[in-house]
């Protein structure tokens, strides 16, 4: 079946060339459409269950963190165990702006959070990716993990930022005189932001730059011999991913009314890895589904006393199971490699 995208990519073919058969059936657009419909009707279905609306909002916000990791790993092959660092630091910054400056207007604080994430990730990228020698994957993974751990330890002992207690009673996110409290309004705000980020990430993935990232993920040395500054591309995507994580951190801080050391540590960074791998890395929608799966299961099982205490162990086993037996995640069952990786200039027989 021809999709609009296929038609767009197939040139007018003045040479009379015939094109290839459609080599794969597209599944992702249907998954995306279904997820969007579910997200749009969710608050109406949940009705008065404000606890569940809050849970759903959390899923949307944490999906930003998951997409941030997918940009790094799924699209570009950068293994980052530090995405929570950018998430948490941005969350702290807007909490401090609210506390010390009494300011929480979204037109300024959300861009500020994005800027913080972008600059911090850019700083890490400069150290980890932009050296003369090509860094190994282990070096980058350990570097980001160390950064996340060090930041968690730092804020845990820093009284100005609440030390181990974190910052609570974060000023509500405001637009003019309207304040976003937990509930439907915040849900739709988070959904709108997630949609914007998602569309942007999808645009990036399907662009010619996305082709560079897809090539980079497979053989970065080869791309260097094509004349691509591979590490610069990596640094760029890593910084963009940091920006997305920062945006998520700000929303999280406003939504929860709290931000603590655990929101920037290896625990949350690893959970972001789990969201992505469980859902299906490289698909963008997979990490969103992975986030929903993990968070809903956590919520449901947290009420079951027998499981509550061992839930982290179960999560760890799930991650292990996914890596060993279903590395392409839940969506890997539906989506072929061809669609996951993408096709950038297909012709038709």
């Amino acid at each position, binding site marked *: 079946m021809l999709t609009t995208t296929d038609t767009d990519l197939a040139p007018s073919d003045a040479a009379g*060339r015939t094109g290839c058969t459609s080599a794969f059936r597209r599944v992702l657009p249907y998954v995306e459409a279904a997820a969007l419909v579910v997200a749009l009707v969710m608050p109406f279905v949940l009705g008065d269950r404000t606890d569940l609306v809050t849970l759903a909002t959390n899923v949307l916000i944490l999906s930003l963190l998951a997409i941030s990791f997918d940009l790094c790993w799924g699209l570009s092959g950068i293994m980052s165990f530090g995405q929570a660092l950018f998430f948490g630091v941005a969350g702290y910054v807007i909490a401090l702006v609210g506390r010390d400056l009494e300011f929480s207007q979204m037109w300024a604080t959300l861009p500020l959070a994005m800027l913080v994430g972008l600059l911090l990730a850019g700083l890490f990228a400069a150290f980890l990716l932009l050296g003369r020698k090509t860094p190994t994957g282990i070096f980058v993974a350990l570097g980001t993990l160390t950064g996340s751990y060090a930041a968690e330890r730092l804020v845990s002992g820093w009284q100005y930022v609440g030390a181990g207690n974190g910052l609570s009673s974060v000023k509500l996110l405001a637009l003019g005189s309207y304040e976003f409290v937990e509930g439907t309004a915040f849900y739709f705000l988070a959904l709108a932001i997630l949609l914007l980020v998602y569309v942007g990430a999808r645009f990036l993935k399907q662009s*010619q730059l996305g082709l560079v990232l897809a090539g980079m993920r497979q053989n970065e040395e080869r791309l260097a*011999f094509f004349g691509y*500054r591979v590490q610069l591309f990596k640094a760029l995507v890593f910084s963009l991913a940091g920006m997305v994580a920062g945006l998520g951190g700000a929303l999280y801080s406003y939504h929860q009314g709290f931000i603590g050391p655990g929101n920037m540590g290896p625990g949350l960074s690893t959970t972001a890895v789990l969201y992505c791998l469980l859902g299906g890395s490289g698909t963008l929608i997979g990490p969103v589904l992975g986030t929903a799966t993990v968070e809903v299961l956590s919520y449901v099982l947290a009420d079951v006393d027998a499981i509550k205490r061992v839930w982290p162990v179960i999560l760890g086993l799930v991650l292990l199971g996914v890596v060993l037996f279903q590395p392409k995640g839940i969506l890997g069952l539906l989506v072929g490699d061809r669609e996951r990786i993408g096709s950038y200039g297909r012709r038709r027989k």
Partner: protein
Amino acid sequence: MALLEIRGVTKTFRTLRALDGVDIDVQDGTFHGLIGPNGSGKSTLLKAIAGAHFADSGSIVFDGHDITRTTPYERARAGLSLKFQITAVLPELSVYDNVLLATQSGQSLPRLLLSASRRTLDGGVVGLLERFRLIERADDLAGELSHGQQQWLEIAMALALKPKLLLLDEPTGGMSPEERHVTGQLLEPIKPYCTLIIVEHDLHFIRDICDQLTVLDQGRVLDQGDVETIQRSPKVQQVFTTRV
């Protein structure tokens, strides 16, 4: 002035001296063959030219610029293009996308993000695929091609960069005699606009397409000159009859 001037290049791997004071000039517009027994340093020299290895000493001057310590990225931008000995196509991308990836390497970041050149580059990509007999496989994954077709795809990708100097490391390795013959035919038309350095074990192939030859032995230049001169060289004959 030669397009490529290699002076006193040495390269040592632990205790093995792979290149030992190599001097070579490659003139613009020539097809230059590097031959020699296994382990003579041919591939190492090619990698030193392309930037996959840095020479320990000596200099490599390309098109008037010293590139001895520059990165592969910088050398590619300067007009050098390498086809690896072991095929390095991107197996999970389509054949078309492999060539597009090489073709679009000179595009700026904003143009890549906006996919501004996708349509304009299409003609060049298709032209290369047609020339290298891959157009019918354009939509297949590169990893699904036969070995010979992957070699052709590699050469097409290397040529997509519009290099001034193309470095081919055993382009006919693993090919059938028919495929080797076709490869020679495919390379012939690039002569007017691209200089070629080719490492190859198939001496018939080398003799058919090259103007100049350099014979390496144990990391040193044993002899160099035109094909006929090298064919008559007693030193070369001795090496090839005793060690090849």
